[in-house]
């Protein structure tokens, strides 16, 4: 199959996936015990008002019609309106998204660096001290709830040592006009050095906590794949040709070990972009995850639905990208 056909097939296959996910989310949020309108207006609203609100929201139509209305609304960028703020959900999501992207990318870079270097070193000295240490590290990171890890870091670095702020993205005292919404880039573009330092300080703790927890996944995958690749003949041949150790490891072996890992890394990125809910809540990080939690607290169902649908779209779109990149790198993937 040519690359173009593969990409086309892959996109077409995603369509039923998206529809099913949307229908599923839609159904779940429609089985609300009690009436969303009652929840919105409170129990004491007069009957006519309730009826009118129902009609306004289209809730008096049959369920399938409601779903199609919603579905085609999404195509037009209509994610519904928040009952809490009255603003379009998509606008609110757009405002929050850069914070999540910033946190995610920071964490992802840390995770990938630890994963690749740690995994390679562990594989090189298989069953020796670095490998054993890596195992204990991974066990710890798997068994630890990330919010607890985050809180412990806050206690140590935020309150006891006073090195880093414990919450938020930027100190309220700092005057600063965002451009892209990614504060690190914005502060540099504005040439505001003080803001830049402040933003980085805020990012370090949540980013590192999240990065360390994910790194365990990458570390193990890199290590296991490297062990496998290092036993292959072409590696032995490279060593026999007298190629320097480091070069064999990082240029010859790693390149081959990384191909299968790329998929996992890509999917992990997608899952992270879909809101690192716990990390964001722990560090009061104003991203998509804490948006969802906030809206749940106020039972703002249109916003909850919008956020979850947004997550679903992110996951599906990124998984398409991951597969396409994979198909470019490794032609065997194209079915």
């Amino acid at each position, binding site marked *: 199959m040519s690359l173009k056909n593969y990409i086309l097939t892959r996109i077409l296959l995603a369509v039923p996936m998206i529809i099913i996910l949307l229908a*599923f989310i839609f159904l779940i949020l429609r089985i*609300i015990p009690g009436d969303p309108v009652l929840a919105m207006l409170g129990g004491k609203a007069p009957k006519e008002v309730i009826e009118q609100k129902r009609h306004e929201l289209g809730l008096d139509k049959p369920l399938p019609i409601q779903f199609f209305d919603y579905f085609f609304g999404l195509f037009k960028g209509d994610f519904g309106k928040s009952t809490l703020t009255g603003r379009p959900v998509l606008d609110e999501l757009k405002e929050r998204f850069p914070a999540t992207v910033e946190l995610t990318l920071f964490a992802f870079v840390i995770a990938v660096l630890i994963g690749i270097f740690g995994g390679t070193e562990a594989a090189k000295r298989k069953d020796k001290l670095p490998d054993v240490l890596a195992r204990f590290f991974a*066990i710890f990171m798997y068994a630890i709830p990330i919010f607890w890890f985050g*809180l412990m870091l806050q*206690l140590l670095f935020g309150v006891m040592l006073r090195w880093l702020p414990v919450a938020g993205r930027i100190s309220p005292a700092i005057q600063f006009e965002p451009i892209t919404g990614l504060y690190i880039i914005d502060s540099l573009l504005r040439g505001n050095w003080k803001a830049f330092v402040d933003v980085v300080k805020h990012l370090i703790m949540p980013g590192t906590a999240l990065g360390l927890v994910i790194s365990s996944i990458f570390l193990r995958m890199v290590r296991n794949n490297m062990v496998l690749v290092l036993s292959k003949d072409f590696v032995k041949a490279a060593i026999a040709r007298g190629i320097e150790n480091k070069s064999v490891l990082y240029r010859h072996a790693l390149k081959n070990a990384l191909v299968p890992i790329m998929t*996992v890394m890509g999917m992990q990125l997608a899952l992270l972009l879909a809101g690192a*809910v*716990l990390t964001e*809540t722990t560090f009061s990080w104003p991203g998509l995850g804490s948006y969802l939690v906030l809206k749940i607290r106020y039972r703002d169902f249109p916003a909850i639905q919008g956020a979850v649908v947004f997550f679903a779209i992110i996951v599906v779109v990124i998984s398409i990208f991951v597969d396409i990149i994979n198909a470019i790198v490794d032609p065997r993937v194209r079915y």
Partner: protein
Amino acid sequence: MNEVKNKFISHHIGSLLKEIFGSGTGIITFIGAAILIFFVILAIFAPQIAPYDPTVRVSRSLKPPSDEFIFGTDNLGRDVLSRVIYGARIALTIAFIAVLIAAAIGIPLGLISGYIGGILDRIITLIMDAIYSFPGLILAIAIAAVLGPGILNIAISIAVVYAPTYYRVIRNQVASIKDELYVEAARAIGARNIVILLRYILPNVLPSVVVVLSMNLADAIMTEAGLSFLGLGIAPPTPDWGFDLSNGQRFVLSKAWWGLLYPGLAIITVVLGFSMFSEGVNEYLNPTIKEKR
């Protein structure tokens, strides 16, 4: 369940432990079982073991650990030790109910889908794959938000996330054994489909169900802790590890490390216990579902 990985925690930890302990799975299983029995005893006999009532103020707030209150007191002056002991009840109960519901959804669907095949199989698989690919915690959050607090509601929210795992395992196994000779023989002597499914096929896939069940418990514990940390668990003042940590930032700011440390250690210990135990179960039943990631 940390955001990123709330599936197969046990499997990952188990394989790491096996590398560390070599082939000595026995010792891992033993330690795991000991941890679990310890926590089950805590849960059952909490009223006898806990020194104080976990829901009432027994001292001034945020008292550091002392002889009187070994784990200190929380921001409402309640005994942290008693809350950690009672917390085992909610965590274990919800985890067990959740995996049972997940199995109760996934197994019948897997049996039917694998046995009948065809278009029905395609459709169910597509739906299950869609759920599976979605971030588990977000899904659980959405369902929990709709259902509201309560043990059963939380268990259902968690179960929906894990049902596809059971479905996949069962469906694939059924699809591969439904053409075995003994099944065909049963069909030849005129056994009805339902009899074939329940008497001939189900017993053969049950061992892998047990393995998935035991592996799933650690995931369920993690997801439950996450949900209640977000305030979506059971209603306060019932003691719950995750919920007690949702006060976390208050403990952080007042340097009350004891309010954070112990509920967190309880979660970690139980997750490790389930992981170790399930590795043993996995080994013992020697299933055909080894290739999980």
